[in-house]
């Protein structure tokens, strides 16, 4: 081992000393910064991952929408089935309706679904909390959990639906009679907006309520595993004739603004928390500078023994690198360990502050999601080690500039 690496190790972990205080404090600073970065980006990644999963689970990976109504739903689905990568399709129609239960009104978004096909594209069954998806027929409705809670509706309750078509009838002095539907299911996706303002009916009910005839608004598409949704969407657009007046969009494209905000939030957190590492790097710089001043005569001695300035610099630079490397490893361990026990920690904290219910109500999660992306970890490790090594550069430069004769005179 070159002497400058050997001496750097000895200065960080001196012979005979059980607890190297300076090293421990410096390593702890870097470790805390890295741990915080790993935890924050993983939790942010977890939220993002859950939200992405929820979008795909409720909309499918690709959605084909018409510029207006799609009259030939069967023809469109048949054409989609020929596109490579398309596994299943399910049509939908949608619109806002007025809903009333025991005098309490609401204005949810209504989705008309093909009960026989929807399960092939989105795992709707998984989100049903009460009742059954199979019970949905033209006289029934499935409502979202928070909407049910706010209305006081339960399985078996009968709700009244007012559609824009009824308003049209009213203009013609026709009698305004709402459609009465029986609640056969309550679903919960885990998203505040969807769980408080969406209801599901059969495609036929929706077509009747909106006077669509046999037309639909779009088709949700499931693609083969591991295929890129953007690639399949492009293929579908290539296969659709211009006359179809419909366009396929991947879930990423359809939600690009939302995904951009998610990524921006994550990047901002990364950027802000990187300052913790920078602050700890300044502390490493400060400690190493003090070390250079304290060891001025030793640096002079090394020069007198034949050490070159660049080797003296390497000795101090390596200390920064080593503090960074050990601190980063310790921080990774601390961060991943904390993430492993995150739910126990959150549960303990919410029990202490009696806020468990608030957490579930506002954040939708009783368990804290986390998704640690290898790319994020790689970036954190690289940033931490590079910043810590840079922290050793200034002390190293100062040490290299010391002339042995002046350093030895420093009594």
């Amino acid at each position, binding site marked *: *081992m070159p*002497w400058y690496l*050997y*001496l750097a190790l*000895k*200065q960080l972990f*001196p*012979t*005979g000393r059980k607890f190297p205080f300076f090293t421990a404090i410096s390593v702890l600073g870097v470790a805390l910064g890295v741990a915080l970065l790993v935890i924050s980006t993983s939790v942010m990644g977890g939220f993002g991952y859950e939200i992405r999963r929820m979008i795909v689970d409720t909309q499918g990976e690709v959605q084909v929408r018409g510029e207006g109504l799609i009259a030939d739903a069967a023809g469109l689905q048949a054409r989609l089935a020929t596109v490579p990568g398309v596994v299943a399709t399910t049509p939908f129609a949608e619109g806002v309706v007025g809903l009333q239960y025991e005098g309490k009104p609401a204005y949810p978004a209504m989705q008309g679904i093909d009960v026989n096909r929807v399960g092939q594209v989105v795992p709707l069954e998984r989100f049903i909390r009460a009742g059954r998806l199979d019970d949905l027929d033209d006289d029934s409705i499935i409502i979202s959990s928070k909407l049910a809670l706010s209305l006081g509706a339960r399985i078996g309750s009968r709700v009244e639906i007012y559609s824009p078509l009824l308003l049209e009838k009213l203009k013609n002095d026709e009698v305004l009679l709402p459609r009465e539907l029986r609640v056969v299911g309550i679903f919960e996706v885990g998203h505040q907006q969807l769980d408080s303002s969406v209801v599901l009916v059969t495609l036929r009910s929706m077509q009747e309520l909106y006077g669509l005839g046999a037309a639909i608004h779009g088709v949700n598409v499931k693609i083969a595993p591991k295929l890129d949704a953007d690639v399949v969407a492009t293929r579908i657009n290539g296969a659709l004739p211009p006359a179809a007046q419909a366009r396929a969009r991947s879930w990423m494209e359809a939600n690009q603004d939302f995904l951009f905000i998610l990524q921006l939030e994550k990047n901002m957190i990364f950027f802000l928390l990187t300052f913790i590492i920078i602050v700890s790097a300044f502390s490493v710089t400060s400690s190493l500078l003090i070390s250079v001043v304290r060891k001025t*005569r*030793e640096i*002079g*001695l*090394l*020069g*007198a*023994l*034949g*050490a*070159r300035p660049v*080797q003296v610099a390497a000795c101090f630079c390596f200390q920064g690198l080593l503090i960074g490397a050990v601190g980063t490893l310790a921080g990774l361990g601390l961060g991943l360990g904390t993430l492993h026990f995150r739910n126990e920690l959150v549960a303990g904290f919410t029990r202490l502050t009696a806020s468990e219910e608030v957490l579930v109500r506002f954040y939708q999660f009783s368990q804290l999601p986390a998704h640690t992306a290898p790319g994020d970890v790689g970036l954190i490790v690289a940033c931490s080690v590079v910043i810590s090594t840079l922290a050793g550069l200034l002390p190293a430069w100062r040490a290299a500039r010391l*002339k*042995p*004769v002046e350093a*030895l005179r420093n*009594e």
Partner: protein
Amino acid sequence: MNEAILTARGVRKTFMSGDRRLEVLAGVDLDVAAGESVSIRGESGSGKSTLLQLLAGLDAPDAGTLAWAGESDTGTARRGRFLGIVFQSFYLIPELNARENVLMARRILGPIDAAARKRADDLLAKVGLAERAKHLSSQLSGGERQRVAVARALMNSPRLILADEPTGNLDERTGDAVIELLLGLCAETQTALVLVTHNAAHAQKTHRQLVLRSGILVHG
């Protein structure tokens, strides 16, 4: 006559003290032969340490020439192999034990091997510190620290040892012992020695006694 190990001709050094030019060395001539010991005495501030630093190649003279074994290369790379230096303040590295401090002189020149380790142990035994090889410098007395510094100076089998008041921080008895040790080891290994000292008795033990007076060396 023995080979000339150190040759200095007309070495001059001037320092600025405010607006005043202070000529510390005004043309020093010095020849030291292999195995020879030379003492240099002088009043405080006479320029003894400055002369030693110039002889060690740690600083450059304003004028004059210097040669080690006839070669004018007194650079860093050659210094570690050609000469050993003993300072008044020992300058041991506190994070290292006695053995590691001695070995440091060799480490700086390149990787150490079993032979180097054995030499360090032998040298520590010669200076009477075999039992204290694993002690940190903070666990050693002043005399012991200086003996470690002597062993370190001899580690690379140098041709010349420059000792700058090596007994300055030691009591008389310990100082005498260190000088005896230094002279004995230099004689044993035919290493030339330049000893800067205030102590006339120590100076008398060397082959040749010089005094630095008014910036030049004269016989003492």
